[in-house]
C-alpha cells in the first residue's frame, strides 16, 4: 500500500520565481489496485510519480510504501516513461535485461526472464533489433517489458501511451489490461485522456491545477476482466457517464484557471 500524506513541493523556475507544483497531496493506493491519475497539464502528476519512484525529492509530507518511508528508488517499484527512455545502443533483449543486469543477475537467467516478457508484449523475433528500428508502439512495449523484468510490486507509468498513435494506443491499453489481469500489480498510471483513465482504472484520481491537489476520486464500477470486451465497455452507460463527469470537472478547472490568470 502506498500512502501519501500532505505532500508538498515548490520548484524554483529559471527566472527565480517559485512554482508550487504540489500543494498538499493526500492519497492512498491499495495493493493490486489500478489507479489512474488525471489532471490539467502542469499540475504535478509527473512530479508526484517520480517522488513515489524515489527519483525526486519533496519539501514537506511523507510517502510510505507498506509502512516504510520512501528514500530512493527500490526494487519494489519500476517506471515506464512517456518517451520510452530506452538505451538506443542496446538491443531489445539487452534493454529488457537492463534492470536484471544492474542487479547482477546471471546472464542465462536474465535472458530467460526477458524472453518470457518479450513474448508477453508481442515482440518475439525482434530481440536483436535496436530501439531506432522499432515503431513508437513497439518501443513502449520494450519499455513495459523492461519495467516488468525486475518483478516490481508497483508499476509507475507516466503517460506511457501519450506518444503513440491512436490505434496502437488502443492495442496497448488492451494488452496492459490483460497483463495486469494476469499479474495483479499495483499500477499508478498518469494520463491526459479521460477515456483511458476510465477504461483502465479501478479508481480515477482527479488532480486540480497547480498547486496540484487531489480534487476528486472517482470509483469506476466497470466489471473486470475488461481486456476481453473493451468495445462493449466503451458503449456502456457507466463508462459514458463517468467520462462525461470527468470532463465537466476538468473543464471547470480549466476555466477557473483561466479566470485566475486573467485576474493576474
Amino acid at each position, binding site marked *: 500500500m502506498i500512502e501519501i500524506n500532505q505532500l508538498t513541493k515548490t520548484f524554483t523556475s529559471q527566472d527565480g520565481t517559485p512554482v508550487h507544483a504540489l500543494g498538499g497531496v493526500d492519497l492512498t493506493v491499495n495493493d493490486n489496485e489500478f489507479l489512474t491519475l488525471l489532471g490539467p497539464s502542469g499540475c504535478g502528476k509527473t512530479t508526484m510519480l517520480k517522488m513515489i519512484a524515489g527519483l525526486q525529492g519533496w519539501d514537506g509530507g511523507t510517502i510510505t510504501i507498506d509502512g516504510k518511508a520512501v528514500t530512493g528508488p527500490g526494487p519494489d517499484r519500476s517506471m515506464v516513461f512517456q518517451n520510452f527512455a530506452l538505451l538506443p545502443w542496446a538491443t531489445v533483449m539487452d534493454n529488457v535485461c*537492463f534492470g536484471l543486469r544492474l542487479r547482477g543477475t546471471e546472464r542465462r537467467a536474465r535472458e530467460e526472464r526477458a524472453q518470457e516478457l518479450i513474448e508477453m508484449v508481442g515482440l518475439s523475433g525482434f530481440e536483436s533489433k535496436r530501439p531506432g528500428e522499432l515503431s513508437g508502439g513497439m518501443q513502449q512495449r520494450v519499455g513495459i517489458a523492461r519495467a516488468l523484468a525486475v518483478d516490481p510490486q508497483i508499476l509507475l507509468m507516466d503517460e506511457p501511451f501519450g506518444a503513440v498513435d491512436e490505434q496502437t494506443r488502443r492495442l496497448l491499453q488492451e494488452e496492459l489490461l490483460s497483463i495486469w489481469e494476469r499479474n495483479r500489480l499495483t499500477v499508478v498510471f498518469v494520463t491526459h485522456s479521460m477515456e483511458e483513465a476510465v477504461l483502465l482504472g479501478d479508481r480515477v484520481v482527479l488532480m486540480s491545477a497547480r498547486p496540484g491537489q487531489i480534487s476528486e476520486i472517482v470509483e469506476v464500477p466497470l466489471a473486470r476482466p475488461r481486456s476481453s470486451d473493451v468495445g462493449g465497455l466503451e458503449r456502456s452507460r457507466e463508462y459514458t457517464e463517468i467520462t462525461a463527469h470527468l470532463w465537466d470537472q476538468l473543464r471547470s478547472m480549466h476555466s477557473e484557471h483561466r479566470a485566475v490568470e486573467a485576474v493576474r
Partner: protein
Amino acid sequence: MWEHLLASFRRIGVGVGCAIVLGPLVGFLMGRSRWVNSLTEPYLNFLRALPPLGYIGLLIVWFGIGDLSKYWLLFLAAFPPIAISTINGMRGIRADRIQAAESMGANSWQITTHVILPSTLPDILSGIRIATGFAWTTVVAAELNNGIPGIGGLAYVSGTQLQTALTIACIMVIGLCAVALDTALKYLAQLLVPWHGKAS
C-alpha cells in the same frame, strides 16, 4: 615525400592521440561537476580561440625545437574540440534515460558506465573527427621550425625556396590525407555508433 608524410603522421598521431585520451576525460569531469566546469571552461574557450601560429614560439621556448614542441602544438589544437564535444554530449543526455536507470536500481558508477559513457560516445567521436581535421590544418604551423622531415615543413621550406610545384604537391597531399582520414573516421563512427541519429 613518403618520409615526410610519415613523419607528420607520427606527430599528428601522438598529438591527437593524447587529445583523444585526455579530451574525453577532462570533458567528462567538466560535464560531471559544475564546479570543475566553471573553473576550467574559460581556459578551454581561450585555448580554442588562440591561433596555433601565435603560440608556437612559446612552445619552442618551453619544449625545445625538437618533436616535443610539435606534439604539444598538435595536442593543444586537437584537445579543445574533443573536450567540448564531450561536454555537449553529456549536457544533451535526456534526464529520463538516467532516471530510468536509477529507477531500476543503478548506482552512480553503473549510470556512468551504462548510460552516460555510451550516450556521449557519438559526440566524442565527432569531436575526434573535428580535432583530426584541425590537426592537419595546423601541421604546417607545427613544422614551421625544424620541420624536416615533415610534410608541413616541406611545404613551408619549398615555398621559401620558390619550388612552387613541390609546395602545391605538399598542400595537395595534406588536403587529401585530411579528407581520407575524415572519411575513415566517419565510417568508423558509423561502425561504432550505428544507433546514432536514429529515434529514441
